[in-house]
């Protein structure tokens, strides 16, 4: 779903989240694609500014939950009713009410796995290395900095992009490049 990742990025730091969101929106209106924002906490209006479609995590969660539900019911019925039916205290072999707790728990568990792995998958995590980490200043992105990255073909002059970003209020602009999966 992500735009093609290029090899170089122009990174621009903004002073406040609002400035970042504004800059992103304007850059996108200017036609820049594949941009990304970086912030220590979610930006209000950030997703809209980047023009991201609704997240698919809920669907993955639903899928996981349903898988858990079916798995649990099938597992319990097969094991206790079909494969080795035993007279347990005179209870019916198919004691569906007794299957409920595990069915519920497995649904939750599978849904949670769906969410977690869905999150990782959609975010392409784990990703221990990223070229952006090459920039020492960029480290502030997770603590107090608000950054915007604009993809940029390697080797071309990035001055134009830089200028545009500075015009939008970037306090710091730099270019990083590297290999990215």
């Amino acid at each position, binding site marked *: 779903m992500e735009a093609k990742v290029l090899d170089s990025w122009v990174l621009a730091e903004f002073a406040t989240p609002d400035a970042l969101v504004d800059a992103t929106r304007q850059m996108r209106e200017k036609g820049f694609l594949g941009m990304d924002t970086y912030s220590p906490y979610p930006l209000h209006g950030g997703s809209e500014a980047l023009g991201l479609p609704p997240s698919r995590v809920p669907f993955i969660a639903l899928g996981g939950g349903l898988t858990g539900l079916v798995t649990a019911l099938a597992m319990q019925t097969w094991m206790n009713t079909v494969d*080795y039916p035993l007279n347990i205290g005179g209870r019916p072999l198919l004691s569906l009410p007794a299957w409920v707790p595990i069915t519920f728990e497995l649904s939750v568990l599978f849904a949670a796995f769906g969410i977690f792995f869905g999150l*990782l998958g959609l975010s392409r995590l784990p990703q221990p290395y990223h070229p952006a980490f090459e920039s020492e200043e960029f480290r502030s992105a997770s603590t107090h900095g608000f950054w915007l990255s604009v993809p940029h073909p390697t080797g071309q002059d990035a001055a134009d992009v830089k200028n545009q970003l500075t015009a939008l209020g970037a306090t710091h602009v730099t270019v990083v490049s590297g290999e990215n*999966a």
Partner: protein
Amino acid sequence: MSRLSAAMLLAVPAIAIGGLLAYVRSPLVTNQARPVEQPIEFDHRHHAGDEQIDCRYCHWTVEKSPSAGIPSTTVCMSCHAQVWNKSPYLTEVRKAFFADQPIPWVRVHNLPDFVYFNHSIHVGKGVGCATCHGRVDQMAAIEQVSTLTMSWCLDCHRDPKPSLRPAEFITSMTWAPPADKAEAAALADKLYKEYDVHSRTSCSTCHR
């Protein structure tokens, strides 16, 4: 990179668990296919194979006792007092007999002590020796052929028909059900009825 680490995250535990499950089913754990050396080189190939001695000649309690019985030295000597009575192979047997010392055979088919297997009922209901013990007449040293796991027991107790054979072939090493499937099934049904087989899967059938 990210795909690889994600795949590892899922694959490593899956392989570990799968490997463990496979391992416990392997002969490493079940003790199958491991010929056991005995204090005396007794060869079933010769006795059961060449000489065609009926299993019950030596394992005489198999039809009336839970245990098939390990023959006492007297049983060995009942023949070997006459034949091969000077053979160096049998020195130990003679020594044991005259010293009145039992021969400490090594157990091959060793069920856990909480499993109460009864030979008499199985033999009485048409389960042949070879069904569980395999072609003993082809073994230089006896080895365990079946897994002897509980699920192996259960397989037969849930569907005993394929393991039944006519009473006269109980000890036969070579008997095989008719090749024709329908015929084999008909025979199995007939035997099942004749023997009045009630194979049970209640726990106390084997665990007491």
